[in-house]
């Protein structure tokens, strides 16, 4: 089974909310600023709970923040 990647739009969502800082988002979510940086750079996939808290901080559904991208071969098999 090929593995997919979890992408996110946190950088854009922060920009849309009058340049919310990483520190402000971290405080809202209850994690460190380093963790927000790691998530934004796709270096860390957060737990489901933190993912929901991030979505709630922006006031958007989870799918608008995170997307699961599958590899081409897996997508082809599914089709």
């Amino acid at each position, binding site marked *: 089974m090929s593995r997919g990647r979890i992408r996110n739009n946190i950088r854009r969502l922060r920009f849309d909310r009058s340049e919310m800082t990483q520190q402000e988002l971290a405080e809202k979510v*209850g*994690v*460190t*600023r*380093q*963790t927000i940086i*790691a998530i934004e*750079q*796709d*270096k*860390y*996939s*957060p*737990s489901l709970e*933190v993912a929901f808290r991030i979505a709630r901080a922006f006031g958007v559904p989870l799918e608008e923040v995170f997307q699961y991208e599958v590899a081409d071969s897996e997508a082809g098999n599914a089709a």
Partner: protein
Amino acid sequence: MDLSYQEKSILGSLIAMVVVYGYYFASVLRNADRREFDSASLGRLLLAVIAIIVIEIAYHIVLALESKTEPKDERDILIECKAYRNAYFLLATGACLVITCVIVAGLARDAAPTKIIVTPFLTVNLVLFCLVVAELVKFFTQLFYYRRGLR
């Protein structure tokens, strides 16, 4: 290089450990012909442990004063778990090697006179060496995952 509070804390502990135990094991090598782990050996070991504690406390006070302390979150805990896993495997391997060393040296001594003797002094220091290396592996693993990320 922009280091987080956790990374600075780990790096400080790593350097303290390398310096203090480096000095301690250098003295062990100088006295490698000792047989028993006597009071002088115990004194050196206690001195190393106290030195580590004092350095760690002083360093973390300075670190807390100059940079904002951050409580551990889920990413820190996950990285710590991975680091403990690596350290455990190394410690378990080291313990097995020391046990094997002691058994083999005992059997060799029984079978024929040999100069290979695993003394209590050597055994204690080998076990301690495994503990120190396991701790260093934990620190290196944490720094590695903080830099590379958990994908």
